[in-house]
């Protein structure tokens, strides 16, 4: 398998790529004489909660696959590669159905184009939404090749069969390599979806089997091409001074000292965003230079005066108080079963607790960067983006041009975690290139990344339960409040609205259950971070059930199994969509199964906690995937915490690439450890107080779990999420383990305060 460079980013690249040429869009990717398969792509829409794909039967013509005259199979990777392996996994699905020889498959990273369906690589939905379309693309090409060979040999198509990059006719012993059939196959009509036959799973070679990951060799030899590495001839470098307080605008600036720095050529202003902030460039003053170092130095010598902002008084300590008061009052109801108030009034015993999770930053290892080249009313970008179509939309709006005149090449992403689905940095590069008439590379520093992130919401939670004489909950009330992601597009947004991410969708069998969402105003840009609302909700919910189990003096796994209760499907979809079949019901049998399995794999029954050594468990469903983790901790006399072992069991439905999925869950344990132990973003006087990795701490090798064991179930249920669902159980499982080890209950994160 060969892999093209993720974008034309090396010095030889030109910026003359245009969307429309003589052969149309595909001409940029396939050479003359290529047989290009036009497949039809169903595009699923998501509910606002991001959890339920609703078949909208919207069909978009699109293109994923082609054959070159030499028989090379080109497969388009239309989703972004940020470490999940999706650039390998989705093409492997098409190669499987085509029965192509993987060594003769070339993966081509797509530019942004709505023809491909959604390219918004987040929400853990690439396989969920595109497994079937890629399967159809492969199967359709196979059928066309078989028909082409049959016509050529004058035999029935049903007697011809593709086997390893060739069509064979068994009766006559004839075979033809794909390369011999390219021209003939191109004349075949594209089959309808109902004509397609899929391979039996017993013949799979790539799906569910080891396949080497694209770009691996390039990465370990330093040749992987990331956004920060993008380069085009004549390019200049920009570092941008942005308002230290969200919402401030430039009042005046003095660039005389900056311009004296050798290598600095000029400065340029980027206009302030117009609220709501969306994906717009924040605005500021850019220093342009012939290398990044000069741009950074010049920027250090800028003197900028900023106008006052309404967010200048924002302070994390005061804001926390506000959120904590909010969750003590009734909020907007998300789910309501039975009569919680009545149950509390008559309860013999109740238990309540409040939890807090701070604001977090994505901090991908590659800070945002983008190259833009504006020429003749059109702009070409090279960017590490999770969503090249959003780049098109955002840049088109920023420059006042049509989105068809924005070409966005997607490089490898040095981590994304949700940050790189917001293309503000691409808008900056495009605005600057248009202004100064040269290709511009915008480089964000780590300080820029932490100061100007789309932060993961800070959250306060309040939970209350009534329990019977055996300590089993008879009523459950949950209230959470956090500034809304909706503030991106609505200045009046006040409700976070992420109830379906771990708060309202709890799998407990409790007759009286209500969850609510309280108001909160955003004073920073807010954005989704790997596993989104599940980050804080899972911490609150699974810590709280651990408290209830502790009070009842029960084994945690047994208590949870009882709390999940009878095998059933919990219907949580909005009323208006319930007339359609639900491919992803919340199935309590699957919740219990991963919990029982993780107990088994971790040897839970034999574990004894106490004296600074403890085990904690949490089971959580998010992004339609069921995950249970058992975490082991060691706490020494000084309170230092080590995590010797994590066991995670995953039911994600059908899994295409077990190896890369395993890696995602290993990584999720580390990501979860960071936010549990040491990560926190705070504001004072409207300014973010963390500037680099000494202040925004993330787990290093010795702080990460030493051994993480992942078990992924083989399962024929529809494919669910992989990238995110490993994160939510980690924080509560760590804190529950600490409680088991020491008797100390953690109700706020991170554990290490500085």
């Amino acid at each position, binding site marked *: 398998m060969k892999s093209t460079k993720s974008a034309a980013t090396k010095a030889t690249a030109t910026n003359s790529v245009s969307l429309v040429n003589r052969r149309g869009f595909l001409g940029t990717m396939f050479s003359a004489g290529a047989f290009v398969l036009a497949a039809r792509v169903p595009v699923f829409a998501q509910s606002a909660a991001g959890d339920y794909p609703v078949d909208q039967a919207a069909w978009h013509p699109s293109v994923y696959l082609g054959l070159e005259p030499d028989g090379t199979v080109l497969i388009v990777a239309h989703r972004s590669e940020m470490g999940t392996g999706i650039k390998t996994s989705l093409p492997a699905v098409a190669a499987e159905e085509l029965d192509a020889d993987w060594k003769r498959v070339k993966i081509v990273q797509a530019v942004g184009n709505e023809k491909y369906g959604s390219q918004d690589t987040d929400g853990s939905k690439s396989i969920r939404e595109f497994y079937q379309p890629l399967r159809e693309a492969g199967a359709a090409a196979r059928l066309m090749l078989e028909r082409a060979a049959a016509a050529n040999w004058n035999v029935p198509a049903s007697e011809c069969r593709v086997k390893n990059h060739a069509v064979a006719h068994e009766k006559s012993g004839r075979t033809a390599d794909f390369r011999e059939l390219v021209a003939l196959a191109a004349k075949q009509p594209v089959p309808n979806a109902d004509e397609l036959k899929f391979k039996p799973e017993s013949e799979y070679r790539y799906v569910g089997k080891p396949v080497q990951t694209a770009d691996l060799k390039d990465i*370990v030899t330093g040749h992987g091409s990331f956004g920060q590495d993008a380069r085009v001839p004549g390019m200049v470098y920009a570092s941008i001074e942005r308002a230290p307080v969200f919402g401030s605008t430039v009042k005046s600036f003095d660039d005389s000292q900056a311009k004296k720095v050798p290598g600095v050529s000029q400065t340029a202003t980027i206009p302030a965003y117009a609220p709501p902030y969306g994906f717009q460039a924040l605005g500021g003053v850019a220093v342009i230079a012939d290398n990044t170092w*000069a741009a950074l130095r010049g920027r250090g010598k800028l003197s900028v005066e900023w106008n006052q902002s309404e967010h200048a008084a924002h302070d994390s300590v005061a804001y926390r108080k506000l959120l904590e008061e909010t969750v003590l009052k009734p909020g907007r109801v998300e789910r309501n079963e039975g009569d919680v108030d009545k149950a509390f009034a008559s309860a013999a015993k109740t238990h309540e607790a409040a939890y807090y999770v701070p604001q977090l930053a994505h901090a991908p290892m590659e800070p945002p960067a983008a190259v833009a080249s504006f020429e003749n009313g059109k702009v070409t970008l090279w960017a590490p983006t999770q969503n090249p179509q959003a780049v098109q939309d955002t840049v088109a709006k920023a420059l006042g041009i049509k989105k068809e005149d924005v070409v966005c090449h997607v490089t490898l992403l040095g981590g994304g975690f949700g940050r790189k689905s917001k293309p503000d940095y691409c808008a900056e590069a495009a605005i600057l290139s248009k202004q100064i008439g040269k290709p511009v590379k915008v480089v964000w520093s780590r300080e820029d990344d932490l100061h100007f992130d789309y932060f993961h919401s800070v959250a306060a939670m309040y939970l209350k339960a009534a329990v019977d004489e055996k300590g089993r909950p008879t009523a459950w009330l949950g209230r959470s409040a956090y500034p809304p992601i909706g503030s991106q597009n609505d200045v009046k947004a006040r409700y976070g609205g992420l109830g379906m991410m771990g708060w309202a969708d709890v799998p407990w069998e409790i007759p009286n259950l209500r969850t609510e969402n309280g108001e909160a105003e955003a004073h920073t840009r807010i954005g989704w971070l790997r596993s989104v609302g599940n980050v804080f909700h899972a911490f609150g919910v699974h810590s709280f059930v651990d408290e209830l189990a502790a009070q009842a003096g029960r084994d945690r796994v047994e208590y949870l199994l009882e709390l999940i209760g009878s095998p059933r499907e919990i219907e949580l979809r909005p009323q208006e969509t319930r007339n359609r079949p639900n491919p992803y019901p919340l199935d309590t049998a699957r919740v219990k199964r991963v919990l029982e399995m993780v107990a088994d794999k971790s040897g839970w029954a034999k574990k004894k906690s106490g004296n600074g050594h403890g085990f904690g468990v949490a089971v959580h469903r998010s992004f339609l995937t069921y995950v249970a983790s058992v975490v082991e901790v060691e706490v020494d006399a000084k309170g230092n915490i080590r995590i010797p072992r994590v066991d995670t069991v995953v039911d994600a439905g059908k899994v295409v690439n077990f190896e890369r999925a395993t890696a995602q869950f290993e990584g999720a344990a580390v990501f979860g450890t960071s936010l549990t132990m040491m990560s926190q973003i705070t504001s004072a006087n409207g300014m973010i107080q963390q500037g680099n990795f000494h202040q925004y701490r993330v787990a290093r090798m010795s702080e990460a779990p030493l051994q993480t064991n992942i078990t992924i179930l083989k399962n024929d249920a529809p494919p669910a999420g992989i990238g995110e669902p490993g994160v939510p159980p980690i924080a509560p499982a760590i804190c529950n383990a600490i409680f088991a080890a020491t008797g100390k209950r953690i109700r706020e994160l991170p554990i290490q305060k500085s």
Partner: protein
Amino acid sequence: MIRLTVNSGAKVFDGDPEMPLLWYLRDVIGTDGTKFGCGAGLCGACTVHVNGRAARACQTRMQTLEGKSVTTIEGLSPQGNHPLQAAWIELEVPQCGYCQSGQIMQAAALLKDKPRPTDRDIEQAMQGNICRCGTYQRIRAAIKRAAGGKA
């Protein structure tokens, strides 16, 4: 005028002597396997070898490099088959891959000093290299594999 070698090639630099090696490598000579992660010596993404020892390119000024020899990930092994690179591929260590040049260069310096590192040696040597994807478990295993252990 500063004379140095980069991956065995002779170079002459007459720009800002305070420029960190990182930006010389990336922007001036286009050796961009060395990554920018923090600019403050906190993450290790820019780790290279200077005269055979691991150094953070973002904290190494050009003026300190007269007569020195710099090796980047591109120059670690002519065929890209250093035992660490082979182990990295075999164990599929990288996720996004961005920090991995720095991780490999740091590990290569470790193995030069200690061909059979203990767990503690590995942890101490690698503590300065952040991987946000969380590939530490595989990094540890790959270092052991490259050192001839089973991992």
